[in-house]
């Protein structure tokens, strides 16, 4: 990307360096203010009453007993919502408070504000709700034809993709049925926010979220307030991974603040958090792959059903993604794909890192291994043979115009050396079963598995995706302001790095992330912010620099082309003029706000054809696992990965995303699942929803960061957050299959899936 502004020397702490994050010190000291750390004089505590039933009619609600509890200031329900009674990302189908019917366990029915959090909880328990319990709809195959559980119907989204010749056949065909369970984002910082009523009749919300402006729009509609009276200010976010894209208690909290006339804070318990945010869509997938005798893919057919749960959330785009990426990063001349998201009385599902691409990757990579076995081909060789390249046509008919180093990530990953030794060489605590010391070494088998995956970057299918950022230069001080949400990924560091490269200054100040006075930066999701907010910040900084140089040139009556910014100073190329930024500005303040848009995308037609995506990112994983054949316990000993990153803007932060995403993929492979029993969540706690600890999480060897700058990306970089969570899960399961000889068509793989299957088969692998 050609810059408007010439910067001579290489900037210190600019792009490409492992620059220290600006919020690291306060976080390490415990001084960084998360949304759950907020406080205000005279603050009340709020708490929500939630449905214990997955499906029921509400026959009566009596709030009076809660109002009678000493210390309670307000109790609110559905009748207290002045504006639109529902909200939602794709469709406003989710009630702020349930009143006639509850559709999932945990659905909010009422809210209490009191002088102590324990009082608020006790008062909520005093509310009397009578239910007529009804049979929950939880079968996703039957859901589409079952009686509707919502007036908008039980089909949330359907996407067909028909590519090439639907009747094409190949010499070899393999089929499979695959399932992925319900994964939870399980971020550490619980849902929490503080609402402060304002003298203008509006409200200021201090909160953790993924997208300030989309929350603002929904809240304003429910409160019947104009958006400029609903002001959102970003507080510290303790991780997100998709779970904060939908609102949690923003509306209910605002209502409590406006009713009481006092600041009110809500903090979820961990159990509430498990119930109170969307989860990853469970998937049921029927697949048929056919290939010629050389292993070239001929056709992929897939039927995918996603469990959307009780409300729509972002099921539209998740379904579209599942369909578009259903065959994987391969050249597929013919395909018939159908993907449907259905409404059930299970907990609502929505965005989680990988967003539809994760589920299908598990299926298509299992299929590729089956094809390889049927053809007696090496699993890596069959993938290389079919790997996408720039210029290939995707299932949607779109030509892959950007970089596509699929073969490179496969080769880098597969070519990395395997760990020396095996399970016999590790200490007891590093065997499956760990500190429990349950393994008998002779019964531990090592397996190796491989997978490659991909997905889109940014939003798709005609969505107007943009990011706003502002740069201000005042008395030599550079300030970048963006409402883009920092969730831990290091976006704040990147903003400073970009500004440093433009101005050559050491210090870059960051303004507040708020809806007030600045437009949207879009969501922190879809691996989009490095590209989108990176582009907006670059544009805003360059605009200020350009106007500064023009101003100096005009004042000194010299040609503009002679000037550059270098090392935090304004200079002419011959050195005759050399001014500090402050002196160059000559008392003037320069401020520019830029809206950055990516090239427009098309909607998909009824056959799923169209240029729906901007860019794609690819990654491969290789897993080494040790399996206890008797107990079915698995230890993931090592993960190796290679990823298509475009350009590394901050190496340490890229490594952080890859290691963190890989760990989440490992968790989904062997331990993470929201266990549902007819709509009831059986494990809403860290005791029973198990995420990888430091003992479970394997070392991650990064065998390759493939840097092929992406044309059109502001800095050549691709987003890196999601790819690590896509191919990691299928690689682990492939390794378990290698160790056990079992089919294993469902994730997470549980000990009983291995131990009981082997016991039944009485199989032993030499």
């Amino acid at each position, binding site marked *: 990307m050609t810059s408007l502004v010439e910067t001579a020397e290489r900037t210190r702490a600019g792009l490409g360096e*492992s620059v*220290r*994050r600006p*919020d*690291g*010190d306060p*976080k*390490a*000291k*415990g*001084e960084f203010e*998360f949304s*759950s*750390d907020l406080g205000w004089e005279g603050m009340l505590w709020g708490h929500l009453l939630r449905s214990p039933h997955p499906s029921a009619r509400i026959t009566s609600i009596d709030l009076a*007993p809660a109002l009678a*509890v*000493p210390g309670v200031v307000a109790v609110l329900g559905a009748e207290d919502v002045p504006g639109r009674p529902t909200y939602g990302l794709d469709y406003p189908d989710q009630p702020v408070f349930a009143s006639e019917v509850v559709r999932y366990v945990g659905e909010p029915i009422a809210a209490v504000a009191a002088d*102590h959090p*324990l009082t608020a909880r*006790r008062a909520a328990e*005093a509310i009397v709700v009578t239910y007529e319990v009804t049979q929950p709809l939880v079968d996703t195959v039957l859901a589409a034809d079952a009686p509707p559980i919502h007036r908008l119907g039980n089909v949330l989204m359907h996407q067909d993709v028909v590519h090439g010749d639907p009747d094409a056949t190949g010499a070899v065909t393999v089929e499979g049925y695959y399932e992925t369970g319900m994964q939870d*984002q*399980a*971020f*550490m*910082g*619980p849902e929490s926010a503080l609402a402060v009523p304002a003298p203008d009749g509006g409200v200021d919300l201090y909160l953790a979220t993924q997208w300030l402006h989309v929350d603002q729009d929904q809240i304003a509609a429910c409160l019947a307030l104009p958006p400029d009276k609903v002001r959102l200010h970003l507080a*510290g*976010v*303790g*991780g997100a*991974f998709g779970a904060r894209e939908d609102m949690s208690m923003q509306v209910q909290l605002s209502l409590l603040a406006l009713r009481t006339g006092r600041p009110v804070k809500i*903090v979820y*318990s*961990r159990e509430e958090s498990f119930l109170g945010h969307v989860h990853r869509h469970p998937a049921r997938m029927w697949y048929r792959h056919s290939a010629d005798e050389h292993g070239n893919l001929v056709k992929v057919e897939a039927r995918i059903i996603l469990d959307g749960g009780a409300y729509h959330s972002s099921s539209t785009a998740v379904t579209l993604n599942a369909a578009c990426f259903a065959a994987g990063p391969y050249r597929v001349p013919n395909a018939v794909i159908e993907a449907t998201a259905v409404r059930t009385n299970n907990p609502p599902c929505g965005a989680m890192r990988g967003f539809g691409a994760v589920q299908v990757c598990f299926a298509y990579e299992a299929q590729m291994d089956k094809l390889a076995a049927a053809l007696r081909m090496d699993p890596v060789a069959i993938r290389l043979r079919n790997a996408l390249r720039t210029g290939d046509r995707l299932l949607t008919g779109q030509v892959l115009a950007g970089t596509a180093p699929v073969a490179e990530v496969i080769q880098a990953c597969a070519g990395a050396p395997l760990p020396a030794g095996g399970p016999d060489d590790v*200490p007891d*605590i*590093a065997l499956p079963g760990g*500190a429990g010391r349950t393994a008998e070494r002779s019964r531990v088998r090592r397996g190796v598995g491989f997978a490659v995956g991909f997905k889109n970057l940014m939003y798709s299918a005609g969505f107007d995706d943009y990011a706003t950022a502002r740069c201000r230069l005042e008395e030599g001080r550079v300030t970048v302001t963006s409402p883009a949400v920092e969730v*831990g*990924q290091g976006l704040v560091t990147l903003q400073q790095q970009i500004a440093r490269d433009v101005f050559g200054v050491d210090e870059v100040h960051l303004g507040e992330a708020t809806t007030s006075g600045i437009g949207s930066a879009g969501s922190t999701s879809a691996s989009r912010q490095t590209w989108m907010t990176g582009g907006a910040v670059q544009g805003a900084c360059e605009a200020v620099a350009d106007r500064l140089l023009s101003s100096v040139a005009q004042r000194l009556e010299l040609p503009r082309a002679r000037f550059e910014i270098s090392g935090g100073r304004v200079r002419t190329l011959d050195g005759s003029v050399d001014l500090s930024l402050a002196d160059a500005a000559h008392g003037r303040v320069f401020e520019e706000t830029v809206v950055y848009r990516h090239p427009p995308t098309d909607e998909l037609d009824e056959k799923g054809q169209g240029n729906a995506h901007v860019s794609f990112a690819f990654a491969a994983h290789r897993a080494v696992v040790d399996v206890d054949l008797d107990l079915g316990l698995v230890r993931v000993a090592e993960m190796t990965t290679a990823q298509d990153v475009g350009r590394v803007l901050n190496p*340490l932060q890229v*490594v*952080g995303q890859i*290691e*963190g*995403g890989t*760990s*989440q993929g490992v968790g989904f492979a062997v331990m993470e699942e929201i266990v549902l029993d007819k709509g009831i969540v059986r494990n809403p*706690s*860290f*005791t029973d929803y198990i*995420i*990888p*600890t*430091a*003992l479970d*999480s394997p*070392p*991650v060897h990064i065998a390759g960061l493939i840097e092929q700058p992406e044309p059109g990306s502001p800095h050549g970089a691709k987003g890196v957050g999601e790819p690590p969570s896509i191919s990691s899960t299928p690689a682990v399961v492939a390794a378990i299959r290698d160790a056990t000889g079992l089919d294993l068509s469902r994730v997470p793989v549980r000990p009983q899936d291995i131990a009981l299957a082997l016991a039944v088969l009485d199989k032993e692998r030499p």
Partner: protein
Amino acid sequence: MTTVKPERLDYVLKVNGREHHVHDADLAENLLFVLRERIGLMGSKNACEQGECGSCSVLVDGGLECSCTMLAASAVGREIVTVEGMTPRDGGLSDVQEAFVAEGAVQCGFCTPGLVVSVTDLLARRPDATELEVREAISGNLCRCTGYGRILAAVRAVQEERAALAEQVGL
């Protein structure tokens, strides 16, 4: 339904070497709640309030505890150290804190205070802990962002720096 009036208490807690008088507190309040909401030490975090995640880690009489699982009143008469007590008074960072930031072990940061406490405690007791021993010692601190890779690198960095310093001083 009758509402039982909660019992209210006054007591003194010794935190980071200072005495804090807690007034009119509900008996059911755990130590984490009192540290944060009554004493104003917000560094210890609440990610589960169940003793599962370690984000509330403190030292009580030198032993690593989940402050969410202790009734605050039961901490009376004991020496409590929080992450604030492990932070130097001069505005800088401890070597553990510095390593966490420099090595990229801090992403969202919610687990960080609990890990600073755990790691500070571990390295004081077992300065030569192997990687596997470190993993076991911090297995009670859940992190969702990092996959623990950079956290282990931070611990290694502190160990190496302390060993080098000890050598210099001739220990």
